[in-house]
């Protein structure tokens, strides 16, 4: 860890907050993507069943 001097709090908070926000964005996107895939396959299955 480099010596951040008196600005350690600001710099580390900036990195922490940014990485956290990016991680949340990616995770929420992935979760929604998986839900969409399962919703689609379920809708397709039901379509074939009724056909």
């Amino acid at each position, binding site marked *: 860890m480099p010596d951040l001097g008196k600005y*350690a709090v600001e*710099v580390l908070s*900036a*990195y922490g907050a940014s990485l956290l926000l990016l991680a*949340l*964005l990616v995770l929420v996107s992935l979760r929604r993507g998986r839900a969409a895939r399962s*919703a689609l396959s379920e*809708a397709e299955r*039901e379509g074939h069943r009724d056909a």
Partner: protein
Amino acid sequence: MSIWQYANPVKFLTLSARVQPYLWASAAAAILVGLTWGFFGTPDDFRQGSTVKIIYLHVPSALMAINAWFMMLVASLIWLIRRHHVSALTAKAAAPVGVVMTLIALVTGALWGQPMWGTWWAWDPRLTSFLILFLFYLGYIALWEAIEDPDTAADLTSVLCLVGSVFAVLSRYAVQFWNQGLHQGTSIPVATGGRTVADVFFYPLVLCMVGFGLLFLALVFYRTGTEIRLRRARALRARALKEL
């Protein structure tokens, strides 16, 4: 075959599946290397001390915040003119990415400015413009959520994006007029694309900017795929209900 072939959802999904692994991998690599290099491998600034390290987060995110909105604008125009659903859905998919980028730009901008300005928030013209952009993003996303019919939602949000873009530019100038005070060409923490930045900071910064750009692309491809699937599932369910 032109780029318009990807207006076909199936073709888009095929392209997306092929391209995404490379996008995710290169984005992760660029961001990791860029941030590590910037954080550990660059010196402190004479005036700003170690806070200059925030540049590797602030500039790329601010850049992507603007680019995301611009991409949404183009996609909205394509939807209004050529009615390609994929285009409307890419705009819808990009908005949350843009809003997060804007938020990162705001938070890092405030944290960067705090040691220099002495307050946790200062109504600096640039930061204020990003705050207004944040509000535009929120309105856009809220409108998508509020309208039931997907095509109507696409139409209305597209017009909002167009009108919003005009007002965003107008606001930029209004805000500059409103607060010319704080930054009359003095040490502005926000560098303009790296030109005013010394070489030793420049290269890791460019790498981070590239990384954020690749991450944006990866996320938009992935999220558009999500929207396409959701739309198709909804259509299938509606058809099933009609046949009952």
